[in-house]
């Protein structure tokens, strides 16, 4: 919130002139009837999307030339607010003259762009962007009916934010690449969640399959896991970044090196060792160990064995390592 938001926008004032004009006088409002379309040797497709009980509903009519798959004429009927009616009108306009295969590529973003007065000013305020999504949905449905396929076959990816058409894959990628931590950042980078806000979290205007809050949490968790895995891999590979590891990671790394190179010899002699602590000073990384079993009383523990342990760790992990038996 800031000065510009104190009063809040007047919703209808944010509509483009085109939205207003088409709401008042939609050009393609009406119906196409089976008998008449058949008489012209064409195919009629009529598809519904939405319902009165949801607050908006649209019925799309296509008269298609079966020879060319071209949409010869299109009409709509709509139960909805001004932007729903204007969006439906532009949708039919965009369909006319296209083949069904071309029409199915029309998205809600095309519909919104076609409603703009000037290319860089949105035709509707953010919370109304949603009205154009139905246009996209009903076109896909009509095309599926005509082509005899499932609607899902047109969807190549999972769309999380329908208003801005942002896919799950894009969101995950953008979060990872830019290390995004908040929903606001996601909206800034992708526009997802910036319109009707349904996709942000449950409880919005409509229920969604995926929510930004969950995607963010899951992706962050994945990122953390990847980081940990990378650290573990580095440690397994010899720990080139030993000094940046957390204490637990350092202990594990030291343990792994000991396991691989030293412990077997100690055990052969009836002894063993354990790591007590790791402390970092300006000059050294001090690894405190304790000998167990036979080692604790072995005279070489303080000389040859110690030297072997220290040099192995120095070689594999860090040249600053100093091993101190206690």
């Amino acid at each position, binding site marked *: 919130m800031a000065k510009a938001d104190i009063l809040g926008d007047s919703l209808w004032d944010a509509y483009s002139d085109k939205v207003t004009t088409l709401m008042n006088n939609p050009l393609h409002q009406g119906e196409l009837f089976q008998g008449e379309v058949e008489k012209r040797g064409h195919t009629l497709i009529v598809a519904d999307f939405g319902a009165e009980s949801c607050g*908006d509903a649209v019925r799309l009519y296509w008269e298609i030339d079966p020879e060319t798959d071209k949409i010869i004429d299109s009409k709509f*009927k*709509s139960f909805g607010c001004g932007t729903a009616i204007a969006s439906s009108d532009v949708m039919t306009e965009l369909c006319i003259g296209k083949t069904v295969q071309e029409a199915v590529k029309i998205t809600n973003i095309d519909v919104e762009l076609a409603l703009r007065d000037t290319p860089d000013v949105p035709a509707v305020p953010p919370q109304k962007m949603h009205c154009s999504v139905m246009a996209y949905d009903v076109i896909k449905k009509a095309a599926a009916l005509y082509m005899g396929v499932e609607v899902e076959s047109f969807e190549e990816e999972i769309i999380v934010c329908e208003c801005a058409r942002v896919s799950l894959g894009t969101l995950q990628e953008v979060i990872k690449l830019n290390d995004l931590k908040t929903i606001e950042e996601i909206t800034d980078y992708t526009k997802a969640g910036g319109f009707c806000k349904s996709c942000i979290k449950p409880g919005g205007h409509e229920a969604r399959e995926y929510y930004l809050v969950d995607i963010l949490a899951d992706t962050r968790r994945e990122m953390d896991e990847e980081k940990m895995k990378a650290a573990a891999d580095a440690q397994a590979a010899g720990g080139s970044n030993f000094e940046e590891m957390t204490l637990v990671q350092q202990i594990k790394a030291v343990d792994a090196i000991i396991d691989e190179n030293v412990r077997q010899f100690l055990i052969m002699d009836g002894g063993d060792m354990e790591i007590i602590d790791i402390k970092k000073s300006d000059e050294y990384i001090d690894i405190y160990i304790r000998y167990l079993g036979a080692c604790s009383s072995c005279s070489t523990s303080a000389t040859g064995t110690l030297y072997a342990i220290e040099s192995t760790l120095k070689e594999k992990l860090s040249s600053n390592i100093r091993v101190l038996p206690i």
Partner: protein
Amino acid sequence: MQVYLDNNATTMCDPLVVEAMLPYFSELYGNPNSLHKFGTASHGAISKAIDQVYTAINAADSDDIIFTSCATESNNWVLQSVFTDHIVNGEKNHIVTTEVEHPSVLATCKFLEEQGVKVTYLPVNDQGTVEAHTVNSFITDKTALVSIMWASNETGMINPIAEIGEICKEKGVLFHSDAVQAVGKIPVDLQAVHVDFISFSAHKFHGPKGIGALYIKDSQALSPLLHGGEQMNGRRSGTLNVPFIVGMGLAMELATKEIEKTMAKIRAKRDHLEDELVKLSDTFVVGNRDNRTPNTILISIRGVEGEGMLWDLNNGQIGASTGSACASEDLEANTVMLAIGADNELAHTGIRLSLSRFTTDEEIEYTINHFKKAVARLRAISSSFAKQQPTKGGEVQESELH
């Protein structure tokens, strides 16, 4: 012609009220708490306004009526201070209210729930009113407060406040009523019914915006919401808003002095408008109008989405309202419509028309005419009235509903 039929949202400030307020801006501007004559110069006018307000709702001299900034403040005050006095510093932990209260009650209750208070949201019947026996059955030993609106802003339906008051009195539970839509519209007699607190607001009865009041029966204890100076005996601090108090007093007197007559006039216009509109097919009005504020109609028009209808009315210079809130981020159906058990289908089609004593017969005729035209136009566009049925498989699938 332009017609304002959104008087449940706010009203025109009566020019007589404005005139009465004017001297208290630049002439008699003293702070009434000052000792000098600049301060005391407005005491007469304030006393008169207090008299006007007490008379209008027949409050007893032993009661308090405290001026606030709005009814939202009054509602917050009661709920938050009952919470402080009887829940935080007492043995109670429960509040009873309804599903259809104004957001200033509902949102405050939600806030209190977050603080650990148990809140019961009572349903309403098909008339949009809460039933007294329902209230009775939900009051427990732990109930600190019952808060139920006197009349609904959406439907105008009037709750059985007298009966609920008796129940609360008998059970020893505090009773608050948000009377914003009742005061100035219907008779409110606080010596005839038992209510501990009522909230009301001047701009709903042709007074200025920015002033409301809280009635407190028998001057009973209620911690202040606003702490500060000792204005109004410390009950509500902040320099007295003299011109607005003067305006509220007069507005209240004008609205209530011959309320039966005024109601009859408004009711006649409202009934005529309603009778004409329900002649349209597939429409219904919520609630029996004998139990409704005389100025309100909430009408559902099948196949016509509320915001679309508002748009067309606005094009005809008619200001009305919809509860369906297509505009809001949570594009929810009208909660009142849903609460009264209306079909989901009709919950997005509600249009509220609310008249005032300034509404004229000509305006009503104009509205009837324009309303019918708008319905005809929008139904011609509406998918609900389309004739050609969808292609097989093109019907709406369950999975597409949201």
